[in-house]
């Protein structure tokens, strides 16, 4: 397969020619910079996307944890997360391939909004599939997509969340494959998507690696990133993989518990790398949260962006070979991580990124002296969730927010 035992192209026959066409385009445009594709991509990520993003020394976290903590500021990318790195790359690639239309899935809406922005920027018609449940609970993101001119198609099937949205986007793509490119939102899906998305996201680690050497004079001891599907994770890790002395730590969503509810096929977490088993989902062999029979479980995380029962096959491979260490922190630690960074550093992180920060608090003593943490996105989108979830708990790091008229 593509990555050791993982990866592959497990898609309906109708999609195989498109997947192979994409493989060819990936090799020519991305790997070989044909027609200056990568030059245009990088230029647009600079002028439209706001790259490079800073690597910032976190003064107060460094003090708190007794080691040098640097934050890679992907929250400053246009749209508020690393998602645009991939979305813009793929929409541009679709344009180079002569495609006329873009489809994409979205869960909480981050990938959908990034894709809609990229499609507007590059003048490509765009349709986004989004589970009905997510549509109704993520209205601001739906509005943003609509304002960028994208169609938003609610998916009524199943629990109406990310998994169903991916299924439905694959169905659209299977119908319209000749003219349409599917902008997948993470390092998942059939080959070459996991490599393609990784290469677009690898700018994170490329920048961070150069920045930490300039700012701290050496490579870091540990690099920490949250992992759902894993695009910010592999984007951050990729350029560090050959640096064998650099520990790579993927922080998954521990949700409310790592124990699985087998009877109802529900995992109250999204810790796929830590607890999953091998199987095939959405086009690739990878680690999955699944029942013994092979049914995919409903996963859970307070962070919608990590809430996925699969994970990128390359991460499965790197975990299997020991290069990447999977860890997990639960909802509560992530919420505290959210509040702590907001309060101590003046950066409101995405709930996804807050898992990496929650891990810092729990396990900084196990880390080296020089640590890079990827802040994959900003948390404005998560305010409502954080308020709701904070209210249910007694969190040490949370402020009192009651200043409103009753």
């Amino acid at each position, binding site marked *: 397969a593509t990555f050791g*035992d993982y990866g*592959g*192209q*497990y*898609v*309906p*026959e*109708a*999609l*195989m*020619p*498109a997947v192979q066409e994409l493989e060819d385009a990936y090799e020519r445009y991305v790997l070989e910079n044909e027609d200056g594709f990568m030059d245009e991509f990088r230029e647009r990520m600079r002028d439209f996307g706001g790259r490079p993003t800073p690597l910032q020394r976190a003064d107060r976290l460094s003090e708190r944890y007794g080691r040098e903590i640097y934050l890679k500021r992907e929250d400053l990318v246009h749209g508020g997360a690393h998602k645009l790195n991939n979305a813009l790359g793929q929409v541009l690639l679709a344009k180079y391939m002569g495609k006329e239309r873009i489809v994409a899935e979205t869960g909480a809406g981050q990938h959908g909004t990034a894709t809609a922005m990229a499609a507007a920027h590059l003048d490509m018609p765009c349709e986004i599939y989004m589970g009905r449940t997510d549509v109704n609970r993520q209205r601001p993101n739906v509005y943003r997509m609509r304002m960028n001119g994208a169609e938003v198609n609610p998916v009524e*099937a*199943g629990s109406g969340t990310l*998994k169903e949205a991916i*299924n439905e986007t*694959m*169905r659209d793509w*299977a*119908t*319209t*494959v*000749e003219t349409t490119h599917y902008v997948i939102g993470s390092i998942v899906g059939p080959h070459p998507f996991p490599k393609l998305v990784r290469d677009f996201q690898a700018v994170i680690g490329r920048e961070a690696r150069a920045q930490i050497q300039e700012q701290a004079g050496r490579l870091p001891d540990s690099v920490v990133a949250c992992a759902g599907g894993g695009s910010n994770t592999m984007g951050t890790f990729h350029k560090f993989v050959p640096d064998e002395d650099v520990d790579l730590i993927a922080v998954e969503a521990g949700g409310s518990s790592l124990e699985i509810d087998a009877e109802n*096929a529900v995992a109250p977490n999204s810790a796929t790398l830590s607890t999953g*088993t*091998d*199987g*095939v*989902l*959405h*086009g690739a062999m990878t680690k*999955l949260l*699944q029942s*013994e*029979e*092979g*049914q*995919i479980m409903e996963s859970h995380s307070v962070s919608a962006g990590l809430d996925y029962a699969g994970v990128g096959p390359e991460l499965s491979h790197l975990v299997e070979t020991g290069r990447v260490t999977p860890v997990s922190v639960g909802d509560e630690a992530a919420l505290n991580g959210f509040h702590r960074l907001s309060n101590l550093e003046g950066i409101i992180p995405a709930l996804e990124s807050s898992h990496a920060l929650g891990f810092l608090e729990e396990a900084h003593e196990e880390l080296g002296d020089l640590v890079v943490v990827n802040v994959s996105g900003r948390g404005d989108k998560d305010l409502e969730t954080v308020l709701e979830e904070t209210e249910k708990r007694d969190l040490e790091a949370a402020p009192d927010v009651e200043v409103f008229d009753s």
Partner: protein
Amino acid sequence: MSQEGTTDSDIEAAIRENHPALITYITAGDPSLEETKEYVEALDRGGSDLIELGLPFSEPIAEGPTIQAAINRALDAGTTPEGFFDLVDDLETEAPLLVMTYYNMILQYGSSEASRASESDAEPSNKPDVRPFVERGAEAGLSGIIVPDLPAEEADPLREACDDYGLDLVFIVAPTTEGERLDRIMSQVSGFAYVQARLGTTGARADVSGATHDSLARLSEYDVPKAVGFGVSEGDHAAEIIEAGADGVIVGSALIDLIASSDDPAAALEAKAEELKRGAIRGADDNAVESVGETAATSPSER
């Protein structure tokens, strides 16, 4: 054409001997395995030449809304692979049976037993393996397997297992399957080539797509039984498809609709199978007539 030039498989024989063939699909466990047994028997009585039984998977990316709903009903009813195989054990149909399911279901079957069994080993393997599924399928009397998310490129392990246990592995040929890939797939097909009538997902449609005619024309040079599915819902469709050169028609969503809406699904299924088989035969007759010359063939629209 069967592998290695050996004698025809059950499936290939069923198609060749009952030409034009009717292949029917329903989802096992929709709404319960007991009822599935009745329905399969009804489809058998109605003239099905092959019956595909769907083993439900939670992420059916190749299915349209009708079969998705059937799969959800089946999963809600607690349908498991073991229950599915028990059903197949019980069935005694004239038509050979195939299982249609997604690749992960095949991979996981028996893997927990396998890993449990290997716990005594120094190096327990937790890698999934396709063989337990194929072995159990063969034991239950299945004749073949169709996997909508398994393209030929990834099919080696499953094909080897199927060969070892004497099951056919049916490949889908899509409107986008062309050139070298088409050659390679057609050379690997066993049982029949599942000709996808149009791009997209399964589901009953009101017409036969132009893509069907194109595909059948493209496939005419291959001496492999060709059955057309995706969108076939009426006897007239069956007639048109057979007339266009197919060896069989595959009907699924239209039958699911009957299960979901009929007062007496078994009777309705039997009647529908009869209608479809008649349509297919009419198409074959028209074809024969046309091959003699443009005479007074009954066109579907005049029926």
